[in-house]
């Protein structure tokens, strides 16, 4: 058994760590606002700052680290993506190295030129149009329909998209095709911005989880004529897209939890070594020591689970239950770490102005935005009942 991270991945990790420490963390004060006063907090990075960071990431070869090589990225695999995500999660600055949804990895040669590469190069933005208003998490039967008419599809319906807004965009629409309304009759279509009948409303940045969440865009399709060549993948096979990559994304998000936990630990250590009560640094108190030790142990356990699942994914092994275990453990771990850090800071984590407030809020969001952990329990339990040995 080899727990050693390969040397080349260590180098990438170190590069990203330097980038986060030198370029992103100094910007945190602008995003979070002054302590105890959030009036000057910003929702997102100013465009010129973002441009500068993207250029810098491009120059040092970090742009597109998790994009497959055949699509123009570095193709460094799941473990590398986890190491990168772990470092990026240690700051509240909303920045990534060119994340493109794995669903778009299925673009054919023509679609790659018109859709995938412009997204990777930030010339176009893709709205992932899967969820529908009022439908909740029930995506197996969609209300948006695409009817085939010769060499076109006629698209009708409404979608919610949480993707970032941009000037030039297209939508990646999951629609029920004429063959059926269940998950086997769902087709993925690429719909250009200028398609008649396609309109986008909403999308303003709102309060709440600042710099983390935006108002969803409402995408409306009213008798949109979409050329048949704009099908992504095969007709009726939308839920087969991303098969090779999507399970890894659960592990990569687990790495994000580990990164946040690591940063929370660092914040907690700083607080414990600088705050005094009753004439003594609180780091001398056994209860604080216990809390710090528990945080460190949980973060370490989460990290090992992430690395093990990522290693398996890179070896081409199925990681269905490992990914579920990673998500379940890391999300719970982060909640528990946030609780302990709040204890060390002597206040509930929701008080704006405390240094760890944003991180704790993000920690809370991780388990809600990314849907329910009970589903992960179901996946693990089903595999155990089928004879999985753990």
């Amino acid at each position, binding site marked *: 058994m080899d727990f050693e991270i390969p040397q080349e991945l260590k180098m990438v990790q170190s590069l990203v760590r330097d980038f986060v420490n030198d370029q992103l963390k100094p910007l945190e004060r602008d995003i979070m606002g002054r302590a105890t006063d959030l009036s000057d907090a910003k929702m997102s990075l100013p465009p010129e700052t973002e441009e500068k960071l993207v250029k810098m990431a491009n120059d040092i070869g970090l742009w597109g680290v998790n994009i497959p090589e055949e699509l123009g990225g570095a193709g460094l695999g799941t473990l590398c993506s986890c190491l990168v995500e772990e470092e990026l999660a240690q700051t509240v600055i909303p920045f990534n190295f060119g994340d493109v949804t794995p669903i778009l990895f299925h673009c054919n040669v023509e679609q790659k030129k018109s859709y995938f590469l412009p997204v990777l190069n930030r010339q176009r933005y893709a709205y992932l149009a899967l969820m529908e208003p009022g439908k909740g998490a029930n995506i197996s039967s969609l209300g948006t329909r695409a009817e085939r008419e010769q060499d076109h599809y006629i698209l009708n319906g409404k979608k919610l998209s949480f993707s970032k807004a941009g000037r030039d965009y297209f939508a990646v629409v999951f629609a029920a095709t004429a063959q059926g309304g269940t998950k086997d009759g769902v087709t993925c279509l690429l719909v250009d911005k200028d398609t008649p009948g396609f309109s986008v409303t909403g999308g303003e940045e709102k309060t709440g989880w600042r710099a983390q969440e935006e108002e969803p865009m409402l995408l409306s399709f009213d008798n949109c004529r979409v050329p048949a060549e704009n099908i992504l993948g095969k007709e009726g096979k939308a839920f087969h897209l991303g098969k090779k990559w999507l399970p890894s994304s659960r592990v990569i998000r687990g790495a994000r939890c580990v990164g946040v936990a690591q940063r929370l630990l660092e914040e907690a250590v700083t607080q414990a070594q600088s705050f005094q009560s009753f004439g003594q640094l609180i780091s001398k108190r056994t209860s604080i020591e216990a809390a710090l030790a528990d945080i460190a142990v949980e973060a370490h356990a989460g990290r090992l689970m992430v690395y093990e699942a990522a290693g398996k994914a890179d070896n081409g092994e199925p990681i269905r239950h490992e990914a579920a275990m990673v998500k379940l453990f890391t999300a719970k771990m982060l909640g528990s770490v946030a609780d302990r850090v709040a204890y060390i800071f002597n206040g509930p984590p929701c008080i704006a102005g405390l240094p760890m407030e944003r991180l704790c809020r993000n920690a809370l969001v991780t388990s809600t935005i990314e849907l*329910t952990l009970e589903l992960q329990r179901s996946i693990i339990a089903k595999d155990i009942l089928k004879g999985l040995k753990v």
Partner: protein
Amino acid sequence: MPLRTQIEVKEIEGVLNTVLNTKSPPVGRCRLLSSGFNPAHALNISENISGHKECLACGNCIDICPFLSREPSRREKTEQRTSMALESIVGEDCDLCDACILVCPQVDTTIKNYVINHRMVEVMSRLEQRIGDEDELDLDLFLEEALS
């Protein structure tokens, strides 16, 4: 921040299950079934607020609600961040995930323990339809991708 001696769930199990089975955010009613405010957490004021069961308006339930995460425009309907606001803006669209109960500082730990130990199975059974067959992706992966 409930009292030290909290509600015995066996005494309210019938009512509690009715509340948890109703398609509406259950946190407000669970708060009323709880023991109320612990004076140890109160500021030094003359009024005795021990056992009071009012919502503190901390907004935890609004923040944790997965339905509002998916449709945050509903939050625009009110500035309030109370459990009453949650009930009025989510209503029957509630996912019945019980997350709001678990984050409410005014709900007794005994009730929270009951929810975790006895109700999560119900939540899990509702979720099973989102897991795909062995050879296909579970639909949650697509939802996560759309939301992240």
